[in-house]
């Protein structure tokens, strides 16, 4: 059921209890986790934090902890499946789920006792009403009860009643069949598309705000969570802008104290500011040229994999009057005269080249003299740390590293994350260029398909879901709907990611999740639907071709 008052129904319930936090591996979940941890530290609520990377790990963690803990908080996992059936908990386990995955499973919505959803009842949830899906079992009982009653009456009367009873029974059965057909249709419509809702970090920040325990750190984490949703294309532009406005109110409330000259805060204090900044990833920590070359938006607009595109880029730079030598330097060492009006100059020129949205509303933080970061920088750095493909580190190690990088006291970890993110972006750019140039993208009927072979450079980087998704979206920018497969050598499986069609007004609803499930069933391919995003699955290499065939027939 949905929780009405998050303070009373969630926070005060767990106030004197021990809690298990099960956190999914994405940046929004990490930020939400940090906020919740900070709140728990304030109030000394004992907890245990367990990172979970998929359904199996979730199940294992639950089994390990169910004896000792009653309260489980699931962050960014668990809303879109029937949790009670999957985990089979005892009656006194209570689950608090704060998840951005939609659609929320109907059982989770209508269960009153064990599942509490920390989700706002937005307009876009459109959960089917109770009566449409669940039918009281009493009516069946009445049916059989009537029949047995009638059976015991004397035979004479029975014959007369029988016809009436039979008619009524037939009527009831027909109504029941109709109701079931309608139910199936409603559920199919409801569960067809997968999309994302409000960021979990923002939900927990609101909780902190209601408790008046919010700090600038928590606000910054909430902003990072929101920006993660935007960077990885999980929410629409409209929603992003609306949520930014909400965050802007909080930011101005926190910045209220900096107003006067006399009592200015020390330079080491954290300041968050609203920026209408450029959409070039990591440009303040890189050189401007590299950033333009490797950002998704600019690279696709210029079509930098062609020679023509590169020439256009040179023209663009010349148009703005930026000498090449300056532009290839590290951003911090560029001339001040160039840096001053950079954003306006770039915006003007990019309008000429057809890039209308080169600037985007976002937030930046700075503390100390050296440390300035934009929210998207943090997202890229933390994502790179979370999915770094080092051999020795397990996934939970990466999780811990990424979690650490979000604290202000671990700046060097953040810098190493930025370095990794740069490598990742360069790898994505090169792979995209090679895919398009060597025509690796095949048209398979209703969708386009691209398969990265074993020997491709940086293929290890792309065996992680988030990096792969970024690559796909990059590839997608000028094309229509798309799936993508990457070979994971060790396990002999392929990771398949499905991306919905790209358009200006797309509502980011992804139908590939259900399509994958049906295709896997119909061909009995050996698939592993372990990731919390249903549009990412692992598939045995041998089954790849028949799976694709099934997918083609399904979607056409």
């Amino acid at each position, binding site marked *: 059921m949905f929780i009405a008052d998050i303070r009373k129904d969630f926070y005060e319930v767990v106030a004197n209890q*021990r809690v298990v936090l099960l956190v999914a591996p994405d940046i929004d979940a990490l930020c939400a986790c940090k906020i919740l*941890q900070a709140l*728990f*530290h304030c109030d*000394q*609520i*004992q*907890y*245990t*934090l*367990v*990172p979970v990377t998929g359904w199996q790990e979730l199940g294992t963690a639950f089994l*390990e*902890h169910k*004896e*000792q803990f009653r309260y489980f908080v699931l962050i960014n996992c668990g809303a879109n499946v029937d949790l009670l059936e999957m985990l089979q908990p005892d009656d006194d386990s209570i689950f608090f789920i704060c998840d951005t995955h939609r659609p929320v499973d109907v059982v989770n919505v209508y269960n009153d006792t064990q599942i509490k959803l920390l989700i706002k009842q937005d307009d876009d949830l459109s959960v089917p009403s109770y009566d449409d899906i669940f039918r009281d079992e009493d009516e069946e009982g009445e049916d059989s009860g009537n029949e047995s009653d009638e059976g015991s009456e004397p035979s004479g009367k029975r014959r007369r009643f029988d016809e009436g009873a039979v008619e009524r029974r037939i009527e009831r059965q027909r109504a029941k069949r109709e109701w079931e057909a309608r139910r199936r249709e409603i559920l199919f419509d409801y569960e067809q598309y997968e999309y994302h809702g409000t960021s979990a970090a923002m939900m927990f920040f609101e909780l902190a705000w209601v408790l008046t325990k919010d700090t600038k750190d928590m606000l910054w984490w909430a902003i990072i969570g929101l920006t993660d949703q935007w960077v990885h294309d999980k929410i629409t532009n409209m929603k992003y802008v609306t949520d930014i406005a909400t965050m802007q109110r909080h930011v101005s409330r926190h910045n209220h104290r900096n107003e006067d000259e006399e009592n200015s805060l020390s330079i080491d204090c954290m300041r968050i500011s609203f920026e209408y900044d450029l959409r070039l990833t990591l440009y303040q920590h890189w050189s401007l040229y590299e950033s333009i070359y490797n950002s998704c938006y600019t690279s696709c607009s210029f079509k930098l994999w062609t020679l023509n595109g590169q020439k256009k880029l040179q023209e663009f730079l010349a148009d703005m009057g930026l000498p090449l030598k300056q532009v290839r330097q590290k951003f911090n060492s560029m001339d001040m005269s160039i840096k001053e009006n950079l954003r306006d100059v770039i915006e003007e020129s990019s309008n000429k080249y057809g890039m209308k949205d080169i600037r985007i509303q976002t937030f930046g933080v700075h503390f100390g003299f050296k440390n300035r970061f934009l929210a998207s920088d943090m997202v890229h750095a933390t994502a790179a740390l979370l999915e770094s493909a080092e051999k020795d580190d*397990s996934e*939970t*190690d990466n*999780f*811990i590293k990424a979690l650490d990088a979000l*604290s202000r*006291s671990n700046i060097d970890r953040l810098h190493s994350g930025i370095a990794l993110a740069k490598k990742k972006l360069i790898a994505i750019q090169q792979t995209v260029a090679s895919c398009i140039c060597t025509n690796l993208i095949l048209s398979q009927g209703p969708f386009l398909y691209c398969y990265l072979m074993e020997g491709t450079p940086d293929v290890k980087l792309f065996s992680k879901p988030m990096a792969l998704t970024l690559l796909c979206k990059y590839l997608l920018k000028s094309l229509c709907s798309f799936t993508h497969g990457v070979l994971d050598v060790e396990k002999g499986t392929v990771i398949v990611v499905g991306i919905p069609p790209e358009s200006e007004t797309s509502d980011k609803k992804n139908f590939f999740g259900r399509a994958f499930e049906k295709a896997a069933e119909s061909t009995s391919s050996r698939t592993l639907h372990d990731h919390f995003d249903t549009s990412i699955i692992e598939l045995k290499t041998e089954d790849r071709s028949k799976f694709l065939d099934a997918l083609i027939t399904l979607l056409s």
Partner: protein
Amino acid sequence: MFCEKAIELIRELHRMSDGQLPAFNEDGLRQVLQEMEALYEQNQSDVNEAKSEGRAKLIPSIKLRHCCLLRNQRCVTAYLYDRLLRIRALRWEYGSVLPANVRFHMCAEEWFSQYKKSLASFMRSLGGNEGLDITQDMKPPKSLYIEVRCLKDHGEFEIDDGTVILLKKNSQHFLPRWKCEQLIRQGVLEHVVS
């Protein structure tokens, strides 16, 4: 030269200055004691000679040997006392059950157990009926609960009110400080400062 063996003993302890306990140097100690015995014998015979025959020329050498004896005694007692202090520090560092690698070097087991007993009875006598564990919280703590991260799989861990926590690698927990201190010293948990 006299007293050199004694200085060797002292140097050995001085080399391991950070509180580690080297093995008990029985040989060195025995040699020093033998030297002391030899000096004493010589002194005895010389004193008898000087007394009986009145040869005052022997007196400086008697004095020299006497000084050497005193120096040897001082060095040996310093050696033993320093080892004692280090063993005492072990009790405060590791608690009443010492890990195996530390116990290997010690030979003063008896002294250690006596010390443990007297410390325990002292602690019991404080704080009313329950006693007070003064080996906890050597520095004033900043908070009652701390966040710890598990560095290796340690299995189940019970806290004061009976709840059992599963310590798995890379899980983080928010636990009462006093329960975690032992495990932090052992290296199973790591204190996370954010």
